[in-house]
C-alpha cells in the first residue's frame, strides 16, 4: 500500500461512493440524451478523479480498470466514440464492478479477489470492441531508470547551467533547483558566471541573467541529474558531461551490436533520451535549412557529449554495420501497398495487350512485353512466402490431438520452402486443419489396432508441398486404414448420389466423400464422421481456384492432394470467342484445341483420337445471340482427370489475365470466376471450368431423367 493513513482512506471511500453515484446517474441521463456535453464531461471527470485518487492509495486494480474507462470516455468526449445504448449498458456494470471493489476496500481488502479479477477481465473484454483502449494501465511506480545497475558507483559530472531569461517569471528559482541538485550527491564546486549581467540601470529585476558551472559527484545516473531540470529545460541550456570519459568509452566498446549512434550513446549512460531528442531536433532544423549534419557532430557542437565518447560510439556503430552486412536483408512491407503495385502491373499488362493489338510486329513491342512479364513475375514474387510456417503449426495440432485420442503419430513435413501467395497461405490453413484432424481422428488407428494389423504402433502423418506446373500441391497423407470403397459406394447409393449398379472408378468413388451431405456422424470411411464436412473443404479449396483429390489403398492409408494456383491475382488465360462475346479459359486447364468436326454437329460428344469426348456448346449454354460460326473449334479442358470439350467460334490465343472479381450481385454465379478487361476495352468473363462441367452434367442428368427431350438451351444465370 502506497500511503498509510486510515483517515485519508476513509475520505477516499466516501468520495469514491459519491463519484460512482454521479457516474451512474450521468450514464442514465446520457442514455436519455446521448449528446449532452455537460453530462459527458461530468462522467469523464468522475472516472478521471477515481483513477487519480485510487493511484495515491496504491489501489492498482482500480487504477487499471478506471484507466480503460477513462480513456474510452475521453474518446466519447472527443466524439470519436458514439454514445449508444450498448455502450451505456456495458459502462453501467463497469461502474457496479468498481462499486463492489470500493466496498471491498472499505472492509479492509486492498487486493481484489479472484472473482473480481475475473469479472474485471470479462468487462474489459466487453469494452474492447468499442475502442482500442485495452492498453496497459499507466505505470504507478516511478519511471524505471534506463541505466545499468553498475551505475551505483559515485561519479563526477561537470554541469553547465544557463537558465532562460524568463525563469524567474515562471516561478522557477535557480537556487531551489541547485539546492535540490545537492540532494542527489555532493556539489564539489560551483562558480557563478555573471558575464551576461547588464549595468544596474539596464537590469530588469524579473529577468534571470546568471549562469552556473558546477561539479557534482553522485551515484545517480545521468537521467536523474537531468530530471532535476525537467521544469526549466525548455528555455534553458543545461549541459551535463561526465568528467571521466574513459569509463563510457570502455562501456561502449563492450556493448552488444546497436544500429544507431543514439542508442549506443544512450545505453552507455553518457547521453539521455531527452538529449538525443534535442540533438535530432537540431539536426532536422539544419536539414530544413539546407545543410546535412551527422548526429554525432550535433552532439559534440552542442556540448551534449564529449568528442572522445562520440568517436568511440561511431567506431562501435561501424563494427555493427560490418557484422550485419552478411545477413539477409529483408524489409517488411504493408500488404496493401504490394497489392496496389500488383494491381498497377496488372493494368500495365492490360494496357500492353492493347498496344499489341495495333502493332504486333514491332521489335520494341516484344521487348516491352518481355520486360512487363518479368516485372509481373517479380511483383508477384514479393507476395510469395514459404508455406513451411503454416505447415509447422500442425506439429502442435498433431501433438494435442494425439494426446486427446491416445494415439501415437509421427508428423513429417517436407517441402516447407515451397512458396505461394501470402493470401493463399492464410486461407488454406483452415481446410488443411480439417484434413489433418480427419486423418488423426479416422485415418490413423489406435496403437492396439495397428499392432493387430501388423503395422507399427506409431502412425505416420506426412505433410508435403511441392511446385508442379505452375501450381502448388499440398499433400496430407497417412498410413491409416484408408477409404472403404464399398461402404462409400453403398452409402452414396443409399443417399441417392449415385444410381444403383453404377460402374465407377476408384477416383470417382473417392470423390463422393466431397459431396455435400455425404459426411455423417456415422463413420463410413476414414474421411467422414464427426460432421467435419469434406464438402466444405472442397468448397474452400475451389474458392481459391484449386482442386482436391484423394488416393487411397484400403488398409494402407490415404493421400489427399490439394492443388492450388500460386497466386490469386493474375492467371495465364486462353482467350476464345463465342458469338460476339469473349471468354477466358484458364490455360492450366486447357490440354489441346482441335477443329470441331462437322460430322459431330448434331451429337453432344465427339471422337478424339479414338476416345469419347463429351462437349459443351458455350453458344447455347449461355444463350448467346447470333448463329454458330461456320468453322468452330473445340477447346479440350481437363478437370479431375476428366476431359471435356468446349465448343467455341474462334480461338484467340494465350492472354495474360488480370482477374477482376465479380461484384456481389454475381456472387452466386457458379461457372464464372471473374472478369478481365481486354486490350480493346471489352470485358471477357473467366470460365470456372470445374463447376461448369459439373453443373452442365447435372443439367443433362435432370434433362434425361425428366423428359428425355434434348432442350439444350438454358439461361446463363442458372449456371
Amino acid at each position, binding site marked *: 500500500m502506497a*500511503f498509510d493513513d486510515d483517515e485519508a482512506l476513509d475520505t*477516499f471511500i466516501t468520495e469514491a461512493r459519491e463519484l460512482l453515484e454521479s457516474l451512474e446517474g450521468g450514464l442514465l441521463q446520457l442514455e436519455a440524451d446521448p449528446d449532452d456535453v455537460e453530462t459527458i464531461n461530468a462522467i469523464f471527470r468522475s472516472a478521471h478523479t477515481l483513477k487519480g485518487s485510487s493511484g*495515491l492509495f496504491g489501489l492498482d486494480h482500480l487504477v487499471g480498470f478506471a484507466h480503460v474507462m477513462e480513456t474510452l470516455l475521453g474518446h466519447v468526449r472527443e466524439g470519436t466514440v458514439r454514445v449508444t445504448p450498448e455502450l451505456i449498458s456495458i459502462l453501467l456494470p463497469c461502474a457496479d464492478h468498481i462499486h463492489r471493489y470500493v466496498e471491498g476496500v472499505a472492509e479492509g481488502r486492498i487486493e481484489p479477489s479472484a472473482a473480481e479479477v475475473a469479472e474485471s477481465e470479462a468487462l474489459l473484454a466487453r469494452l474492447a470492441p468499442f475502442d482500442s483502449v485495452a492498453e496497459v494501465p499507466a505505470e504507478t511506480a516511478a519511471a524505471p531508470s534506463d541505466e545499468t545497475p553498475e551505475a551505483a558507483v559515485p561519479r563526477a559530472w561537470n554541469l553547465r547551467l544557463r537558465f532562460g531569461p524568463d525563469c524567474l517569471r515562471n*516561478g522557477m528559482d535557480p537556487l531551489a533547483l541547485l539546492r535540490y541538485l545537492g540532494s542527489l550527491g555532493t556539489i564539489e564546486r560551483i562558480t557563478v558566471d555573471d558575464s551576461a549581467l547588464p549595468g544596474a540601470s539596464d537590469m530588469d529585476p524579473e529577468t534571470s541573467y546568471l549562469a552556473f558551472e558546477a561539479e557534482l559527484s553522485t551515484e545517480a545516473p545521468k537521467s536523474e541529474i537531468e530530471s532535476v531540470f525537467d521544469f526549466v529545460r525548455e528555455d534553458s541550456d543545461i549541459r551535463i558531461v561526465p568528467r571521466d570519459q574513459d569509463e563510457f568509452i570502455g562501456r561502449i566498446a563492450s556493448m552488444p551490436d546497436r544500429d544507431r549512434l543514439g542508442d549506443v550513446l544512450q545505453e552507455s549512460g553518457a547521453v539521455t533520451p531527452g538529449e538525443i531528442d534535442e540533438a535530432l531536433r537540431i539536426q532536422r532544423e539544419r536539414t530544413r535549412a539546407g545543410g546535412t549534419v551527422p548526429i554525432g557532430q550535433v552532439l559534440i557542437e552542442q556540448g551534449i557529449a564529449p568528442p572522445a565518447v562520440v568517436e568511440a560510439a561511431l567506431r562501435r556503430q561501424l563494427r555493427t554495420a560490418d557484422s550485419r552486412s552478411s545477413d539477409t536483408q529483408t524489409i517488411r512491407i504493408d500488404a496493401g501497398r504490394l497489392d496496389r503495385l500488383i494491381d498497377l502491373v496488372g493494368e500495365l499488362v492490360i494496357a500492353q495487350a492493347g498496344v499489341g493489338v495495333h502493332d504486333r510486329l514491332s521489335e520494341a513491342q516484344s521487348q516491352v512485353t518481355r520486360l512487363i512479364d518479368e516485372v509481373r513475375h517479380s511483383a508477384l514474387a514479393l507476395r510469395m512466402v514459404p508455406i513451411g510456417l503454416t505447415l509447422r503449426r500442425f506439429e502442435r495440432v498433431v501433438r494435442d490431438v494425439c494426446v486427446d485420442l491416445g494415439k501415437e503419430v509421427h508428423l513429417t513435413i517436407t517441402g516447407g520452402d515451397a512458396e505461394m501467395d501470402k493470401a493463399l497461405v492464410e486461407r488454406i490453413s483452415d481446410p488443411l486443419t480439417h484434413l489433418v484432424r480427419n486423418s488423426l481422428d479416422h485415418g490413423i488407428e489406435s496403437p492396439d489396432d495397428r499392432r493387430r494389423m501388423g503395422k507399427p504402433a506409431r502412425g505416420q502423418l506426412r505433410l508435403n508441398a511441392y511446385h508442379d506446373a505452375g501450381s502448388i500441391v499440398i499433400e496430407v497423407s497417412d498410413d491409416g486404414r484408408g477409404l472403404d470403397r464399398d461402404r462409400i459406394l453403398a452409402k452414396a447409393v443409399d443417399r441417392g448420389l449415385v444410381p444403383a449398379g453404377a460402374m465407377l472408378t476408384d477416383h470417382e468413388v473417392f470423390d463422393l466423400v466431397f459431396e455435400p451431405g455425404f459426411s455423417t456422424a456415422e463413420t463410413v470411411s476414414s474421411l467422414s464422421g464427426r460432421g467435419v464436412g469434406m464438402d466444405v473443404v472442397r468448397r474452400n479449396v475451389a474458392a481459391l481456384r484449386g482442386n482436391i483429390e484423394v488416393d487411397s489403398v484400403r488398409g494402407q492409408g490415404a493421400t489427399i492432394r490439394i492443388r492450388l494456383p500460386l497466386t490469386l491475382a493474375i492467371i495465364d488465360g486462353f482467350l476464345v470467342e463465342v458469338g460476339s462475346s469473349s471468354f477466358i479459359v484458364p490455360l492450366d486447364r486447357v490440354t489441346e484445341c482441335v477443329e470441331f468436326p462437322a460430322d459431330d454437329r448434331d451429337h453432344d460428344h465427339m471422337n478424339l483420337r479414338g476416345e469419347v469426348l463429351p462437349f459443351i456448346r458455350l453458344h447455347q449454354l449461355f444463350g448467346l445471340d447470333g448463329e454458330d460460326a461456320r468453322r468452330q473449334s473445340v477447346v479440350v479442358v481437363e478437370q479431375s482427370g476428366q476431359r471435356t470439350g468446349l465448343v467455341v467460334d474462334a480461338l484467340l490465343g494465350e492472354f495474360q489475365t488480370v482477374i477482376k472479381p465479380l461484384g456481389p450481385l454475381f456472387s452466386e454465379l457458379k461457372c464464372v470466376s471473374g472478369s478481365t478487361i481486354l486490350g480493346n476495352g471489352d470485358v471477357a468473363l473467366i470460365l470456372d471450368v470445374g463447376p461448369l462441367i459439373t453443373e452442365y452434367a447435372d443439367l443433362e442428368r435432370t434433362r434425361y431423367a425428366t423428359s428425355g427431350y434434348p432442350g439444350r438451351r438454358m439461361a446463363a444465370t442458372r449456371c
Partner: protein
Amino acid sequence: MGKTILVVDDSASVRQVVSIALKGAGYDVLQGSDGVDALKQLDGRRIHLIISDVNMPNMDGITFVAEAKKLPAYKFTPIIMLTTESQEDRKRQAQVAGAKAWVTKPFQPEQMLAAVSKLIAP
C-alpha cells in the same frame, strides 16, 4: 514559519493525501476544491507554491492558472500541474498559461515531494 502551498483538486482524497505528505515535509497547506474556490483564496496572502489539477468542475485548472498569473501578488508563484499521460495537449496549454512544472497522475506522494522541493525549500 514554513512555506505555504495551495493544493487545488476536486478530489478530497487527493487533497488530503497530498496535504498529509506536504505537512509531513514541513509545509503549510491550503486547499481548494476547484478553480473558483481556489481563486477565492488568492486574496493577497503569501503562497509559495500552487499545485493544481487540470480537470475540475466550475473552473478547470488551466483557466485557474491563467487567472492566478494575472494577479500581481502571485505573478512569480511556481505552479505544479497534475496531468495524465494522455493529456499531452492539456499539458502544453497549462505551460502556455504559466504552469511550467507538472506531476503525472497517478503519482506517489514521494514523487510529489520531489517536484515540490525542486521549486521551493520547506
